[in-house]
């Protein structure tokens, strides 16, 4: 194992302003929640080493600014990413409705070769709120994810550390699969676009 290459997995977190992207990243990486996060300007970056089965990987997580106008900066760091996490806030309908445009925007900017098989993971955050404040039901979200191409869907609370670990585990696994298929394709650029496995959508939540 030590002689094997340490794989870098590049993961981008997208979603409307205030849905909890920074909180999710911090919860996953540091296992902490704080209500002291400031609005993200530009982009933030954090790495995390982890093992997937017997493989050592370094996950590079890129946290982004949510306000729409930041999109026009031309998002150079989207390129070469292995997985994209789309986050919305279960108490905010607009953030849910933006999910599919975030997905499209990513595919355009990242210049993804095979958009149909690129791994996305959808996260509905802030499920710790009281039931009556929740505006987007799990059913509705799952319907959207099915429609967007059977995307894996998780409901999380970054605040109470619910499901965050599980969601990022799937992120890591799908990213790894993507990275391996990309490397394979890169080395044989003449070959037909081979995808080892396009089965990204089967993960249960």
């Amino acid at each position, binding site marked *: 194992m030590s002689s094997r*290459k340490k794989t870098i997995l590049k993961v981008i977190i997208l979603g409307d302003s205030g849905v909890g992207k920074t909180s999710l990243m911090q919860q996953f990486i540091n296992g902490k929640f*704080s209500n002291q996060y*400031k609005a993200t*300007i*530009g982009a933030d*970056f954090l790495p995390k080493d982890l093992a997937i089965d017997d493989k050592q990987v370094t996950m590079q997580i890129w946290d982004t*600014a949510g306000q729409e106008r930041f999109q*026009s*900066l031309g998002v150079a760091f989207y390129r070469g990413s292995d997985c994209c996490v789309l986050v919305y806030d279960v108490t905010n309908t607009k953030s849910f409705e933006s999910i599919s445009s975030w997905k499209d925007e990513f595919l355009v900017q990242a210049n993804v070769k095979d958009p149909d098989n690129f791994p996305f993971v959808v996260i509905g955050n802030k499920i710790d709120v009281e039931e009556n404040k929740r505006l987007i039901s799990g059913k509705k979200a799952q319907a959207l994810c099915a429609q967007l191409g059977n995307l894996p869907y998780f409901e999380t609370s970054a605040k*109470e550390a619910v499901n965050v670990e599980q969601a990022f585990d799937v992120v890591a696994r799908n990213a790894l699969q993507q990275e391996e298929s990309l490397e394979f394709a890169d080395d044989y650029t003449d070959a037909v676009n081979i995808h080892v496995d396009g089965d990204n959508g089967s993960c249960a939540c």
Partner: protein
Amino acid sequence: MQGSVGFGGAIASSLEGDREGLAGSAKPVDGAASARVATIKNGDVRNGDSRDSEFSNVNLGSVSVVSDEPPSGRKIGAGHSREPSESTYSFLDFYTSNGSPPREDESKREEPVQEEPFLVVSKRGEEPDDARLGSTKAIPKRTESLMSTRTSRNSAERIRSNIESDLKSSSASHLPSVKNTGQLKRTSFLTSDRDRYGFKKTSNHISESKYNAWWKEYSVYVVRRKMKWEKFMNKSGLSGHSSGASFKAPSRFPPKSDDLKRFVRKGIPAEWRGNAWFYFAKGPEKLKENKGKYDRLVEETLNLVNENTEAIEKDLHRTFPDNIYFTNKTSVNQETGLVEESESPLIQSLRRVLYCFSQHNPAIGYCQSMNFIVGLLLIFMEEEKAFWMLVIITERLLPGIHDINLEGVSVHQGVLLTCIKQYLPQVWTVINSTIKDKQNTDILLDLPPLSFCTTSWFMSIFIGVLPIESTLRVWDCLFYEDTKTLFRISLAIFKILEPSLISAAQTAKSRHRHSSRSSIYSNDSDDADMVTAELFQLIQNTPKTLLDANSLMETCFKKYNGFGHVSQDEINNCKKYVANKRQRYHEMIQKRTSAFGSDVDRRALSEEERRRLLAESMGLYADKKVGLRASNWNGRLSGRVKRIQSRLS
């Protein structure tokens, strides 16, 4: 006095402990939450400090509790029984009366019962969650009246004048009557967990011991500089009213001179900053031209709801969550046992300024990062001035930076990269090694990922990038010396980063090569990713450790190997060059898109087009005699152009 600061810190820390504790345990217990909050409140009352009672009075005043209301619903004007005081509270009056400000009495006389017009009510035992408030309330119910606005402005102004007097005594020592309080205040910051602006002293990057060790030295420096400033001002015939023991914060400053520039670079006394920034940025003129405009805007935007205001609401509580004055207060209503949260007056000011600006300049509306700029301004000046400063910053100092397409940000990043290439070639080599597909990439048109790290340097003018005291020193120079300051400081930061960037790039490469030796997967692109990640972290984190403002300024302005020679003309010309080039590029893309449809790869200009682009932008730039040879930006292409030209001739 000493008690008040220490106490302010204590409140904040126990509050935080509370929140984080609750968050950690994941199941807030009713009783525990209420009890803890209640303790704070009692402490508040007992202390009787005006700043703290400012908040606690809110809870003593009449309050309408609507438990069905979501925590977002703001109840307005509840129990408003008294006209707010007509007189505007001025910290200047405050100073002239007596050397040691009798803060408590004064404020009580000014507004006998402070009734807070805004109230957020949470349900019993629910953890108050600032971060969430913004996002849950999609459309805030704003039914404010002008009267409640006036009250709120007065409270904000009072808080600010308290900060002002804190700042004043933290830099006072030479006059006998202030000496004691000054020294007490300075040492009291050593025991508090807050600095003199109300920010948390520690961060992930700065420990308390590191902060205290630095502050012990720096506070002495601050006092010394203040004395020299006073002497300097006296010499310039701008002595102000040295009545009593205090030197009134001047509202006018001497004409520009090398001496004054030196003084500004060494730091403007903190309690003068508001006036000095406003004066140097030509705020008084702006204010004079627009008398009454701000008040009208406040009136117009009272109940405004649109896309901008929604975005603003999301960010109000995420602006300075680490500053005590920008944090809402929670308390338990003794009668009902409900946890109540009252909105900080400075957050209300922040809201008004941002609302007004979005109305005043719809082309910009609201852009994230303006919240930080206004937030910092509000610590130093009253909200009308802060508003006009924002106008000046967005119109004159950082044009385009906050525009809807953020084109100004890209232009500034391009200029910064050009500066780095010119003045820090070794850093440039490192950055260049992160660029994939160098042949087909023009870095000015297609910014590298590392540029996202330096975005906030310009957008938020270093707030949150550098520690607060260093940020303020940058702001001093910015308003006095114009925007070249931002590039000089950026270069100084990269100069500080230089050795670690170089070694990080080397180790990242060699580590990656080594570990992938047996792999067939190794390629340049992975190398670039690896290096980018390492560099990004360094560029992201190192500035946050630059606590010592003096050594940052020294790096920036020292005679040899400093950046004081980077001139405004040079920056302006380079900006023009980058902006023109980008504009031409966008026009070409547009033409291609309309000709070939939208599926054209945006980056793929034909060789012919690239040549034309370069030749044209060279023409724009080559006429000017400037130090930055940006026309040689793309060596490969310019070489080719030269060859073509020689062939033609």
